[in-house]
Every structure is written in structure tokens, then in C-alpha cells.
């Protein structure tokens, strides 16, 4: 669609971004791969030589590995289920005619803009504290014994906090998708005699399927690496150690770089599997 001249100019203009990202990707990645094949303990002797795949097998066979995978899956799965289901319902509700729709939208979106450390701390202290937290007061109001949220129901608590942060994202995207539904389609279905529930099931929900997939994939990418929420609340205790938190501990807390790097490679592979699916969807959209 253009002439030779503009094409070479275009290549030049793209160069800085491409070079920077290429460096940002390749340099650390190569280093991680390099360390993952070494016994490397900066505080206890430094570089102790090549060890082949030992770090990889050790990471997999360590007692902390499988629980961390399980924790990761529970947190990601739980948050996805909550945000998608509530997101669809909330988006449908917000799409109804009402007064002050814009204001409600703003209220619903707000948690997304709260920095993770703030939301984790606020929930931890002001809501989930077994003595002074609001939830404790609520439990007492009904005569129940307050729960020690972050130790007794640690995973549930984390899922609650993270869901609160991500529900706005899901709702906003699903709402945008619902609004793009051609109302004539719904009117045609109504003329064809479909009651509201069936209209939702046969028209609205299929229309949303793409947006739901996008929400699931993007959230998965972010949720696989949630950090601050765990760092600030439980510090990985009480069974809340996710895969990425485990790697973080290996690298920065126990300073076992080789082992942590092998874990990092696993995390990268895991993220890439999810990424491939997301990119397919985004890629399809590029053609349209």
C-alpha cells in the first residue's frame, strides 16, 4: 500500500522499540537459562560449577513444588470462576436502563485502580483482622466466632482479595462486549418468541464468549504472577505459596539462584502455554 521510500523510513522508525524489547527479552532469558544449569549460591560460595539438569529435577522433586502448583491452580481457578461469573451478571445488570449508570460504573471500576499493596493491606487489617476487622464485627453480630481469615482460610482470603481487584476488569470488558451486541438481534429473537432467559442464553452469552475467553486468558497471565497480595498478607505462609512466590523465595530469600532459575524456566514455559492461546485470539482480531 505504499512506496519504497516510506517503507525504509518505517523500518527505521520501528527499530528502537524492536531492539529494546529484543534486548529486554533475550538478555535476562539467556542469563536465567545459564544460571539454571549451575550451582550458584551468591552468599555461600558463589558459582560452584555446572550441574546439568540437577536444578530442574530438584525443583520438581522438592517438597514445596507440587503444593505450590496446587496453590497456584486454586488461586487462579478460583479468581477466574468468581470474576467471570459475577462479571457476566454484573455486566448484564449494568447494561439495564437505570438512573446514574455512569456513577455506578465508576464505583464498580474503582478497585482496579487501587495499588495491590494497598488493597492487600486494607483487606488484611481492616477487614480480615480477627479482632478489629469489619468481617469479625459482622460475624459477632450474628453470634458466630470470627474467623482468623489469613491463617484458617488463607487461600479463600487471597482469592477474595484478588477477585475484588479483578472483578472490575472482567465487568468492564464484558460490559463493553454486551454493549456492542446489536439490539436488533435481541428484538428479532423477541419477535421470534424467545423469553428473556432464552434470549440471554442463545444470543447474549454466545456473543460474549469471545470476550469471556479474552478475560480468562489475560487474567490468567496476570494471576499466574500475583506477588504483592501474598507478599503483604501471608508472606507465603499458611499454604499460600504459589509457584512464582516459591521461585521468588528461592532466588531472593534463600539466594539459591540456580534452583530459582530452573523454576523460572518452568514458569516461563507455563506462561507461554497460556500466551499461545491468547495470541491466537488477538491475532485473529488483527486480520479483521
Amino acid at each position, binding site marked *: 500500500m505504499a512506496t519504497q521510500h516510506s517503507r525504509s523510513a518505517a523500518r527505521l522508525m520501528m527499530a528502537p522499540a524492536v531492539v529494546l524489547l529484543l534486548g529486554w527479552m533475550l538478555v535476562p532469558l539467556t542469563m536465567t537459562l545459564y544460571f539454571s544449569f549451575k550451582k550458584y549460591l551468591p552468599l555461600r560460595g558463589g558459582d560452584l560449577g555446572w550441574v546439568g539438569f540437577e536444578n530442574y529435577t530438584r525443583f520438581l522433586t522438592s517438597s514445596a513444588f507440587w503444593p505450590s502448583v496446587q496453590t497456584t491452580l486454586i488461586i487462579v481457578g478460583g479468581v477466574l470462576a468468581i470474576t467471570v461469573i459475577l462479571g457476566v451478571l454484573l455486566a448484564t445488570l449494568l447494561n439495564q436502563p437505570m438512573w446514574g449508570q455512569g456513577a455506578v460504573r465508576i464505583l464498580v471500576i474503582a478497585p482496579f485502580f487501587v495499588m495491590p499493596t494497598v488493597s492487600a493491606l486494607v483487606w488484611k487489617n481492616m477487614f480480615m483482622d480477627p479482632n478489629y476487622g469489619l468481617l469479625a464485627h459482622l460475624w459477632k453480630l450474628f453470634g458466630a466466632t470470627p474467623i482468623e481469615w489469613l491463617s484458617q482460610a488463607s487461600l479463600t482470603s487471597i482469592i477474595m482479595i484478588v477477585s475484588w481487584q479483578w472483578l472490575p476488569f472482567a465487568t468492564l470488558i464484558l460490559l463493553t462486549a454486551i454493549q456492542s451486541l446489536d439490539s436488533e438481534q435481541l428484538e428479532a429473537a423477541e419477535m421470534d418468541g424467545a423469553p428473556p432467559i432464552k434470549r440471554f442464553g442463545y444470543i447474549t452469552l454466545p456473543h460474549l464468549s469471545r470476550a469471556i475467553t479474552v478475560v480468562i486468558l489475560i487474567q490468567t497471565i496476570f494471576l499466574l504472577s500475583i506477588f*504483592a497480595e501474598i507478599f503483604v498478607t501471608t508472606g507465603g505462609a499458611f499454604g499460600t505459596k504459589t509457584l512464582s512466590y516459591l521461585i521468588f523465595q528461592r532466588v531472593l530469600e534463600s539466594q539459591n539462584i540456580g534452583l530459582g532459575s530452573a523454576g523460572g524456566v518452568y514458569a516461563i514455559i507455563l506462561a507461554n502455554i497460556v500466551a499461545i492461546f491468547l495470541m491466537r485470539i488477538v491475532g485473529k482480531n488483527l486480520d479483521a
Partner: protein
Amino acid sequence: MARSTTTQRKALNTAFAWGIGLLIFFPILWTILTSFKTEATAIADPPVFVGFEWTLENYTAVLERSNYARFLWNSIIIAGGSTILGIIIAVPAAWSMAFVPSKRTKDILMWMLSTKMLPAVGVLYPIYLLFIKLGILDTRVGLTIVLMLINLPIIVWMLYTYFKEIPGEILEAARMDGASLREEVIYILTPMAIPGIASTLLLNVILAWNEAFWTLNLTAAKAAPLTAFIASYSSPEGLFYAKLSAASTMAIAPILVLGWFSQKQLVSGLTFGAVK
């Protein structure tokens, strides 16, 4: 729907939606309210909602004790700097991909997106090491660069999406009218793209402001932004609810305001144009 709903139905929707909206917003509201209480009122049993004596003492306490201004300044420099730097690098790239697409444009875009998906923890140590070697650990420069790089794919994507919407004929008209590439960018493209650039700027300031992995792991005392400032409340001081609330309110207030402005662009920006 071009049909009027009954007032009753609308009232019901309104009540229901406002109820849920307020429930979701409540933790933020509660934090803001608590920030104006005394420490004693903050932990009163039963909790007090509005009928308390409002005080600003927590704000003054936080400001006096923790050098809040420095953390705030770090946040502003890091979030603003990384965004502006990112936009300067991304504008030419997005421009060329949108208006002079080649067969590889799509692949490059997808590849850029894929770098965004690298789990940070996987490259934590190499970056940490590089930062020590380069002497930029715990500096604003270092953090600005990292945040620019992690958000660069989103910036390129958002700008690309906006640029794509500028009709190619207008740029051709400018070329016919004798504008050079430089003049085309200055007189035609930039003014037309300003709304898109502005919303990209907004969204990325928000993302950078709230980033809480690199900011926690690559800073100590000097360059720590507000995310780290709040994280420092996680132990003993966290029990001072009113002060925690005041600090939190100050950390989130600027971004809440920006966020509400950018909510429209949020969707296409965060889904890489997959949902519009």
C-alpha cells in the same frame, strides 16, 4: 432498545445496581472514612461509620513521620518518566506499523505482546544482577527503564489501535499536498492522534503507578515509590488503622481520579484491541 421500560423496573434496576456498586466500592470508602478517624475510633466496637469526629491528624502524622513526599515524588518520576519515555519510543513504531504495514507487521506486534507475558519472577535474578553491575539498583533511572520496558508492548499496541483508526486517505492527501514525512507527522498525524496518545499516557501512568513486583524488589530506601511505602506498613504499624488508611488514601487518590477518566480506553488497551 428504542422502547421505554416501566419506571418501576428502572427503579428496581437502579436500586440493585447501586447496592452492588456501593458494596464493591465499600472497602475504598471505608478506608477513606477511617483515615479521618482517631486511632481509637478506628478500632471501636461496634464500628462507627459516619457519626464520628473528623480529624486530619492521621494525614499530618503520616506526612511528618515517613517522608511521604519522597515516596510520592519517586512514584511520579517513575510512572511519569517510564510512560513518557515509552511513548517517545512507541509513537514512531506504532506509526510505521499502522500506516506502512508489511507482511511482518502482524508478527512483530504479536511478538511484542509475547514479551509482555514473560513472568517477571523468571527473570528476577538476572535483572537484579544487571542492576547491581550497572549500578542502578535502587535508583529511579533503573526502575523507570524497567517499567518502560514492561509497558512498552501495551503502549505500542494501544497507539497502533488508535493510529489504525486514522483514515489512510488523509495521510495520502497530506503527501499529495506536498508534506514531507516530518511535516506529515507534525501537522497531520500528531494533532489527530493526540486523543489516543493522551489515553495511552493515562492508562500507562496507572499501570506503572500500581506496579508492585519490580518496584518492591528493585528498590530499598532511595528510589522506593508509594507501593513500597505502603508495603512498609504491613507489620507493626499496620495496626494503626487510621494512619494506614490515611497513607493508603494518599497513595490511591491521584490514580483513582486518573483511572475514572481513562475507563473507556481501559478496555481496548488492556485487551490489546481484542475487545472494543
